[in-house]
């Protein structure tokens, strides 16, 4: 084994225009200028509206079940094979649905964060 050489950071060719904007973005936020405020507000709005859309999807599916069974009491007698439909919906099918909603959320939230990083720049990889 030879002596380890000094670590070299390998980077891609600089994209000039993009870099100017990048450095500026984080500076604006750090200095709490009006522009930095705009950057932050847009990130918060994106993330919050994403969260609220997922919660709405949850409320309009799982959340409507009690009302549905209240309005249509006959649903209690409906069966899928030997299993009452309420047991099937709440005992089994709800769980993959929750995981799917969570998976969609994580993907979109990370996407939003990448967009934000591109917008304000200086990504430290």
């Amino acid at each position, binding site marked *: 084994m030879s002596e380890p050489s000094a670590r070299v950071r390998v980077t891609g060719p600089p994209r000039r225009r993009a870099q100017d904007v990048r450095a500026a973005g*984080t500076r604006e*936020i*750090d200095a*709490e200028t009006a522009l930095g*405020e705009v950057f*932050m507000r847009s*990130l*918060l709005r994106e*993330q*919050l509206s*994403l*969260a609220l859309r*997922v*919660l709405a999807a*949850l409320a309009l599916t*799982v*959340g409507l*079940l*009690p*009302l549905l*069974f*209240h309005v249509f*009491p006959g*649903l*209690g*007698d409906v069966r899928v094979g*030997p299993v*009452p*439909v*309420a*047991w099937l*919906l*709440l*005992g*089994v099918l*709800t*769980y*993959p649905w*929750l*995981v799917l*909603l*969570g*998976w969609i*959320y*994580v993907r979109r*939230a*990370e996407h939003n*964060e*990448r967009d*934000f*990083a591109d917008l*304000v*720049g*200086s*990504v*430290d*990889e």
Partner: protein
Amino acid sequence: MPGVVAVVLVSLATLAIGTWGLRISRTTSDFLVASRTVAPRLNASAIGGEYLSAASFLGVAGLLLTFGAEMLWYPVGWTAGYLVLLVLVAAPLRRSGAYTLPDFAEARLGSRGVRKLCSVLVVGIGWLYLLPQFQGAGVTLRATIDAPPWAGSLVVALVVLASVSPGGMRSITFVQAFQYWLKLTALLVPVFVLLAVWMADGSADPTAAAPASWSVPLASPGGGVGLYTTYSLIVATFLGTMGLPHVVVRFYTNPDGRAARRTTLAVLGLLGIFYVLPPVYGALGRIYAPDLAAGRSDVLVLELPSLMVGGVAGSFLTGLVTAGAFAAFLSTSSGLTIAVAGVLSQDVTGRRFGTRRLGGVAAFRVAAVIAVVVPLLLSLPAQDVAVARTVGLAFAVTASTFAPLLMLGIWWRGLTPAGAVAGLLVGGLGSGFAVAWTLAASPDEGWESALLGQPAAWSVPASILTMVVVSRLTRASVPAHAGRFMVRLHTPEAVELQR
């Protein structure tokens, strides 16, 4: 006999893994920083292990046996609570750098008063949640070896103290992760055997002997009261999860906000897999153990294997479910004890008494003893309340206090210390009074009982509204660092910013 073996084995394994984990964590200089490197998959198992308590392991199946589909809302709510936590607080909470809820409140609002109030709430909620764990342990030991109810509670309390006192998130992480998989195995393996026995017996219909309400997911009296109770339970469980003291502590062990999200997603999957199982016990119980429905439903999971399967196989399965139940008490109790003791040692036992002052580790150990002994004593007279119900009440309190604080604190920079205190008091006192009334009085089926027995549907909006209104009235005292704190909470770590 298989019950004793199972209890001893689980206790020993817990202590052994705890000690082994402790050795690993000694190799790093900084305990908490080491904990920050827990990978999402291990961390998700640990969270699942900590979260699946006696209520999930024993309580749900028992309630399903007695009341039917309306009780499916408990496991659904406990899982959906993680989805709500994921989308509203997971990444920001990790990025806040707060180790406990009082830490978060103080960092966000810059107020010692809010911190103290949060500390009181954490201790109260922790005790309310520890109570059913000890109760469940008593039930388990009585069912398996006919020990007096206090014996099981005492064993759990002692093992928890022995494994928690050395301290250390790292070692607890391994213990909790092990206990998730133990609990899953302990329910999953018997399910296959029991279903095979059921099919060999001719696949009897579980709903044949059950009342019609058994297939309707609405709370018991039905009508308007039933609808209210059901929705109130949904509000409590969907929102209550994010405010549980032992859940928040775990988020700090993620490396960053992105990992916190991925961990939470993995937890959703793990909980979903687990919660498919208790309904099977509840349904089979309708056929093979209908008499347990009246009063002794908490032992259903423990007794069903021996009722359906005889001989050595039956004993083995009984040992397995007993082991799982004990793991459930130990993991949840350890997590809660750490959370409560952490707060107590910061704010009570670590303080100066006269001229004397305890050191950090000693203060934590004294705090751990206090954290365990109080609910242990309280659990002795309260053996009759169903385990899952007491846990349900704890969720109502967290949903009315910490959930509004976290949601508004993370998404609304206008929150002021005065607003937070007012909202915490309104939600905490409202739901707390309802809980005390429910534990003391015998509930009937009227509106009054429903409103007090399941307070979340009114106490959560009341708390949120109070926080918003009082914050607006005191808007001059919005913390100066609120904007900077929002940057810290919401921007990805990869972007270089002052935080």
